[in-house]
């Protein structure tokens, strides 16, 4: 694990191209009310360890990494999130995962499909650098067609420029 951490640190400096002040918060605030929230890290007994529900609960928002406009570099906050993902994936080595790349709405359709793939691939490469076998990871792109924030604002666009890791149960 120590060598992996060292590799991660090296990649961190190589890949972190900018300070990325416009990025979305890495850990989104919990839903108001939170009556059905699963992010109880202690576990409630309702979540099967090693399941996607467990992944969501353990990662507490770090299942998603965010990007600047037109960018796909993995910055410091992304590294932290991906390290948490890698730790979970390395704990359950039989699990496979898909990384879905998305863009904001302020781009042309075809370019955004390619950009979504590029973001998913950047996240995948970083997970591989942290010891996750590449054969366990696939990528998908949805371009601008699946936003999670519906406003047409800088804040919403920052939330939509993302790569989401989904483990396959």
């Amino acid at each position: 694990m120590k060598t992996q951490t060292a590799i991660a640190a090296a990649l961190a400096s190589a890949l972190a191209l900018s300070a990325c002040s416009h990025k979305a918060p890495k850990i989104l605030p919990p839903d108001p009310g939170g009556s059905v929230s699963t992010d109880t890290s202690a576990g409630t007994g309702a979540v099967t360890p090693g399941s996607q529900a467990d992944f969501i609960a353990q990662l507490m928002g770090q299942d998603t990494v965010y990007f600047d406009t037109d960018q796909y570099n993995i910055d410091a906050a992304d590294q932290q999130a991906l390290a948490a993902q890698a730790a979970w994936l390395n704990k359950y080595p039989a699990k496979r995962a898909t990384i879905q790349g998305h863009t904001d709405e302020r781009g042309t359709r075809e370019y955004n499909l390619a950009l979504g793939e590029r973001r998913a691939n950047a996240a995948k490469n970083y997970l591989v650098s942290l010891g996750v076998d590449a054969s366990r990871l696939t990528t998908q792109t949805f371009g601008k067609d699946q936003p999670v924030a519906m406003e047409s604002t800088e804040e919403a666009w920052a939330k939509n420029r993302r790569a989401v890791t989904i483990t396959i149960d």
Partner: protein
Amino acid sequence: MTVKKLLALFCAAALLPSTVLAQQTAPAVSQEVDEEVVGNLDNDAKIAIPAFATNADTPTQTSAGGTSALGMSLATVIYGDLKNNGLFKPTGPASLPRPALAQVQAPDYPGWQGRGSDMLLQGYVRAETDGNVTVGCYLYDVSLGQQLAKAGWTVPPGEWRRAAHKCADLVYSRLSGENPFFDSRIAYIAETGPKGHRMKRLAVMDSDGANHTYLTTGQATALTPRYSPDYKQILYLSYFNGSPRIYIYDLASKTQKLLLQSPNPLFAPRWSPDGKWILYSVAIAGNTDIYRMPSNGGSAVKLTNSPGIDIGGSFSPDGSRIVFESDRSGSQQVYVMDASGGGQKRISFFGGRAATPEWSPRGDQIAFTHIAGNFRIAVMDPSGGSMHYLTDSWQDEAPTWAPNGRVIQFFRTARTSGQTGIWQVDLTGKNERKLDTPGDGADPAWGPLRP
């Protein structure tokens, strides 16, 4: 091939029911008639378009009804085509007297002058015994007292609107000097549902929005269609196992198949003007490049090889060159290359980003999306000069050319709501309008002039 040219139309005797119709399969549009050249186009040419005459109100199998109602509908479709074009000031049949059959070729010039008309477009419709309908179309200069053009077509009842579009094309090309374009179709993506969960279906329609048909159910998202030059197939994008794939839809058999088997995402399918080649883009490990393959199958050739996203691609009309977009410089810009991939050269230097280039069927211009704040449709010449904007809205993208290279459609997205619509603009940028589609619309692709 469904439209038959009626060669014998031009003699008056052709109007008699006993005349044998000399028909042939028409390879192209209506013939022109020798006339002196009309002077500079009056941008406000007042064209009277009365209901088409008929010798008797005969029932037809057309959706318009009998020949009398059909004569009214034909004139209404022509009126719509010419009105929406922006070059003319047509008056439609609702407010004009319908000429008698005998007047179709002997217009009441003083009467039309009295109404202030510059031009008169009139015609007739006749039901044939085999169920087809024959439409005659005559254009007159009212002030000169002269016939400018005439043509006729015999069409199956289901295609009566095509005769109207052919007639509007005759008027448009005779008066503007440009090539015709109304008799053409558009493939697009019909969108419904909320912003984060849109249903996207492949759909087709006539250039005026009529004869609208959905081709897919919407269970799988459809994107970026392109009509084949012969209108027999449509290339488009759909999702399979979560990844975009290129499908080829056959319109006659209503079946579709994957263009290519690939583990990688495929985007941006395009036809060459002769239909013999297909361009597409493949994303492999974060790097997207453009490939060319024979449309009947066979091995692909990789045309671009730069790190970054090279995508799209549109052939020049002669097929020798390709305009495409690449972010190899750090942002989306427009490049040209030979059809073999050689001589790649950036041509957009306007600040901001330049995307979705489409080469005009006339060859003289390239339409694209310019992004600097707003997303705007713009045109430039093939060397990147003479750039000017055609639209100015929050987000306009994906221009597609009319067959004559003088009109552009694109899609416009509304801020916040995400609602989309297909719009049309001419090269002056002054004549802009939204197409009437059943729901939202995006990704328009204009096909060629129909044969």
